[in-house]
């Protein structure tokens, strides 16, 4: 039997464990930090880890205090464990410290995970769906890079659309096992000048409409545009959302995202990947501090 699913949920090891940094490389304006996990638990695309550093967490300023959620961008399964890659863009005290430790190649990151719900295969999302459209923005391209590799393994055809603000905020392209990425940039330095959702609009107007599922991760405004476009086109979509997570395992109730039916979900438990049809809006969660 060929594999048809993108993976099964495997419980993460209980607790917080140090994972040794084994690689660090620039990926455009981002950095791919690789750690080795001897537990061997293989994460699904879309799942995340709560990461912090063993020292200076918090630093002398008192921040970063809480761990930070990172989607896994690459997975390399070896005989005695897995190498996990995280795409880091240093924008605040937490991401700065992760990048600092990751860049040193000598340290360890403290990790809890893999956590949350990952992407499902197209036929699991919509009956009859045979292909995938991946649309990512900014640092949100990370989980899509792993999804793309897993889709290739399953033999599912996929198209990749990636958007960036400008060259200083672009990276992760090298993680895609794909030579046919369609790019959009706000400043026009590469690919289509404009929004990446312009490219999606064109695809949804064509033949892909009836046979594909859309997978997306990126800034809230982009995700909301994707959600609305898919809903109007009658195409199922799975969105990897972001919301400030204090713990990642349901303890703090911080990552509330409004549900379409009323009330809230805890994104760390019921996401971060959600079906577009279940949420009120993709930009109604909180901004990450």
């Amino acid at each position, binding site marked *: 039997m060929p594999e048809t699913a993108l993976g099964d949920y495997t419980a993460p090891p209980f607790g917080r464990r140090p994972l040794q940094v084994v690689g660090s490389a620039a990926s455009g304006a981002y950095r791919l930090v690789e750690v080795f996990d001897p537990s061997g638990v293989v994460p699904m695309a879309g799942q995340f880890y709560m990461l912090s550093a063993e020292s200076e967490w918090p630093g002398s300023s008192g921040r970063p205090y809480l761990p930070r959620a990172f989607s896994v961008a690459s997975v390399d399964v070896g005989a005695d464990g897995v190498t996990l890659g995280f795409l880091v863009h240093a924008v605040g005290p937490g991401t700065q410290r992760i990048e600092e430790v990751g860049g040193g190649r000598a340290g360890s990151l403290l990790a809890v995970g893999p956590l949350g719900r990952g992407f499902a295969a197209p036929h699991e999302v919509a009956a009859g769906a045979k292909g995938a459209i991946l649309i990512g923005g900014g640092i949100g391209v990370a989980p899509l890079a792993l999804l793309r590799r897993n889709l290739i393994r399953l033999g599912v055809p996929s198209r990749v659309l990636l958007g960036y603000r400008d060259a200083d905020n672009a990276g992760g392209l090298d993680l895609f096992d794909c030579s046919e990425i369609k790019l959009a940039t706000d400043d026009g330095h590469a690919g289509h000048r404009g929004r990446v959702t312009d490219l999606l609009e064109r695809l949804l107007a064509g033949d892909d409409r009836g046979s594909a599922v859309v997978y997306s991760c990126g800034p809230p405004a982009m995700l909301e545009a994707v959600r609305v476009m898919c809903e109007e086109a009658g195409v199922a979509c799975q969105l990897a959302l972001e919301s400030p997570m*204090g713990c990642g395992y*349901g303890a703090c109730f911080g990552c509330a995202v409004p549900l379409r039916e009323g009330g809230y979900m805890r994104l760390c438990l019921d996401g971060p990947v959600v079906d577009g049809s279940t949420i009120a809006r993709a930009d109604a969660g909180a901004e990450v501090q």
Partner: protein
Amino acid sequence: MIEARDLRVDLCGIELAHPVLNGSGTFDAIAAHDVFGDILLERFPFSAFVSKTITPEPRPGNPPPRLWEETDGVINSIGLPNKGLGGFLEKDLPRLAALPVPLIVSVMATSAEEFAGLVQAISERSEVAAIELNVSCPNVKSGLVVGESPDECASLVSALRVLTEKPLIVKLTPGADPVPVAMAAETSGADAFSLVNTLKASPLSPAGDGHWLGAVSGGLSGPTIKDLALAQVSAVADAVGLPVIGMGGVSSGADARSFLEAGASAVAVGTENFRDPEAGSRIARELEDLG
């Protein structure tokens, strides 16, 4: 006198393997069991489990954002999301009863009558070892925060005392001097105290466009409040003859020992659980190593 390496504690007749509990609302044992599996039960981090606060009716919780990272701490405005008493008894209690440690249920209401309904219903359940009263909200009739008023607190504890034989733990708020409140509650029949709850705080948005939190104000917790908590725990422990569960920024065995030395019989870990799911057992181990 606790002998070295024997961390057992008797809390109102409840035998605890060590003095480290969780603070209410800082660890969801059901969610953690779903995430990590049965190993959670084998390596349960706390010597007793304190539930999230249960209210008479279901609550969805506050609109996001709900969290603000402070220096050495967190401000949260979660808003007590819970299934309500009925949902708790039907769905959550059976799962919490399967935990390997005694269960303490936290309850909150906005009137003595509603509190009585909660305490009566929970008192009937043998799975519950003790009841914690979250008195950090206003009485709708008087407008006074119960935990900030000795008279309100005494009247509530007296009304509930006759309804249950289970230990009643009063969770004190740091917003007012907790000593007169604790003394009044002791006279009215409380069995123990837990303190401190979070401190009211309202972070501003860094973008300069008003308040950050969806509910405007929340509660400050974490190491940044530890010294304040130690002072209040010490004052209450000196003033009453009942056990005190001390909390506020407990992140290490050394922190736990500070609270025990200040007069607490046990400690609760809250915000540190967010950083480390096994914080409770780590802190108990560190406490043991301190001798």
